């Protein structure tokens, strides 16, 4: 498996560490209540198709990356720096 790091280009999967679904970008407000945090931390769509997820280019430039990847084929549709995605979301 190879992953396109937005900085470094195509690199071997072994340079990256996977975290989980990209919903982790949207931490609830501190006063959102316990249930909101339970949903945020534990419950997942876990789709069999397109999946937005977070990877860390651990052994490379150490960027957190938001990838869109198909869970059935492992094919990556896009990769973006998480910081850019987050800033864009604001």
């Amino acid at each position, binding site marked *: 498996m190879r992953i396109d790091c937005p*900085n*470094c280009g195509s*690199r071997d999967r072994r*340079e990256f560490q996977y975290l989980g679904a990209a919903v982790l970008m949207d931490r609830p407000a501190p006063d959102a209540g316990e249930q909101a945090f339970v949903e945020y931390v534990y419950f997942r769509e876990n789709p069999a198709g397109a999946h937005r997820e977070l990877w860390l280019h651990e*052994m490379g430039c150490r960027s957190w990356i938001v990838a869109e990847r198909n869970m059935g084929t492992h094919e990556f549709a896009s990769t973006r720096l998480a910081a850019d995605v987050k800033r864009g979301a604001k």
Partner: protein
Amino acid sequence: MVDLVAKSPHSGLLPLSAGQLTLTEAAPAFVSSIQARQGKSSALAKALQASHGLTLPEVGKVTAATDHRLLWFGTDQYLLIGAAPAAPSLSEFAALTDQGDAWAVMHLVGAGAAEVLARHCPLDLRTERFGIGQTARAPLADMPAIITPIAQGFEIMVLQSLSRTAVHHLHQAMLSLAAQASLI
């Protein structure tokens, strides 16, 4: 006053050679990290130009002056190698840390250097894709490393505490490649 003697992380380990290949120590005088403060990249670029005569390298690139150079290290992060940072003028725009003792620096040189490195590093090392003027952070035998092409070979930087492991793996690969070179 106590007299403390410095010791290189490669002390007793290098130099090594096998066939056409050599692995030598290449400790620079200074290494510093430079991280641009939020929104201060262009100001930092100007300050670096003024103080060190260096432009900020693009992603994966190196900019160099005669005796010092600047390596791209990550988003808004650089390593200044070979010169002490002009701290007061840079600090306004960047966070600096001394990295001069953190890294063990080696030169792997000779025909087949890329093949040696390819035993332990998944980077695409083909010259046309990764040549002089470029640099990359990548794993070397599961250790974080900085690989920078140089004439006939590569500069390899690993954390000083891992230098013994890195030298061991590179040496074994050098011996293996030297033996394979004699195979028809």
